[in-house]
């Protein structure tokens, strides 16, 4: 199959709807298994941290929420770029679907971070580079949601959101390296792909479970919300009406 026909197929909302329908149950099952399993493992079975005691257990939800919030933003910015360059409508729907999910995950990472900070650093909040840049990420997501609602015209809204999403992507590397570039209360990354991780394997394994679980959960939600967008935008097409009301009408 040529690249252009693959692109054409993926850009077809109808094809995407049918294909994603088959993925939904698997994503739901595996994401919940990994999230619940990893959380129980991290909450009840991993030994306490020698410095932080038990507060470090918040990591098993905080790190996945923060990592997936950033990954979701890059997905949203990429979808925005695809929409701007190739005028792919499906990409605009994906972009719109991600914003509320990403905003929720960013909110969770800020909240669990604050709750983790209190017993560990002695404060809920500091205006340091890491926390401030994640707060900006939260406002970027809210900005995309607000822009979608501000425009009457759907195409104009998608274009404006795509530009905001792409420009805001500069914030993602800033979040990532903020703990190394600036002095911060926030600890640097404990997991390294290039060197040796500074986290004990017994603590790392449940984190890998909840991290994978959160990525799958995001994938599940992304498909659910994109499919709703497809139904709403294609409501006047024959295939959507047949799908909802049955073929024999």
């Amino acid at each position, binding site marked *: 199959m040529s690249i252009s026909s693959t692109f054409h197929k993926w850009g077809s909302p109808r094809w995407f709807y049918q294909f994603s329908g088959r993925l939904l149950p698997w994503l739901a099952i595996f994401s919940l298994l990994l*999230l619940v399993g990893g*959380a129980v493992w991290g*909450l*009840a*079975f*991993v*030994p*306490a941290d020698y410095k932080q*005691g*038990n*507060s470090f*257990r*918040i990591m098993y*939800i*905080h790190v996945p*929420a923060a990592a997936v919030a950033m990954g979701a933003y890059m997905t949203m910015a990429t979808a925005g770029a695809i929409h701007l360059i190739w005028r792919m409508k499906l990409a605009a729907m994906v972009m719109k679907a991600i914003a*509320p*999910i990403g905003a*929720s995950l960013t*909110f*969770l990472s800020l*909240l*669990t971070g604050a*709750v*983790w900070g*209190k*017993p560990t650093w002695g404060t809920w909040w500091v205006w340091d580079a890491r926390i401030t840049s994640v707060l900006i990420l939260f406002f970027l997501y809210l900005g995309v949601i607000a822009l979608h609602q501000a425009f009457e015209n759907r195409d104009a809204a998608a274009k404006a959101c795509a530009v905001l999403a792409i420009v805001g992507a500069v914030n993602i590397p800033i979040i990532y390296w903020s703990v190394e570039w600036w002095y911060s209360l926030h600890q640097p990354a404990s997991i390294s792909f290039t060197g040796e991780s500074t986290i004990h394997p017994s603590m790392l394994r449940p984190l890998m479970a909840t991290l994978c679980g959160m990525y799958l*959960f995001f994938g599940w*939600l992304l498909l*659910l*919300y994109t*499919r*709703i967008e497809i*139904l*709403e935008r294609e*409501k*006047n097409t024959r295939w*959507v*009406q047949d799908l*909802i*009301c049955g073929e024999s*009408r």
Partner: protein
Amino acid sequence: MYFNSVSELLSMSGHGSYVWFSYGVSALVLATLVIVARRRRAAAEQHIRALVRRKGATTSN
């Protein structure tokens, strides 16, 4: 289990309220995302059914 009893698991030597609150709110937010999706989906379906009914009514007249 790492803890010796359920009450120890709940209190986590003083950190329990922070830890359990974090997980409680997270479960709530993630569940809300799924519930909102289900409601929006149902509303979209209802809208499309109404649309088809109206179309059927105008074509039969």
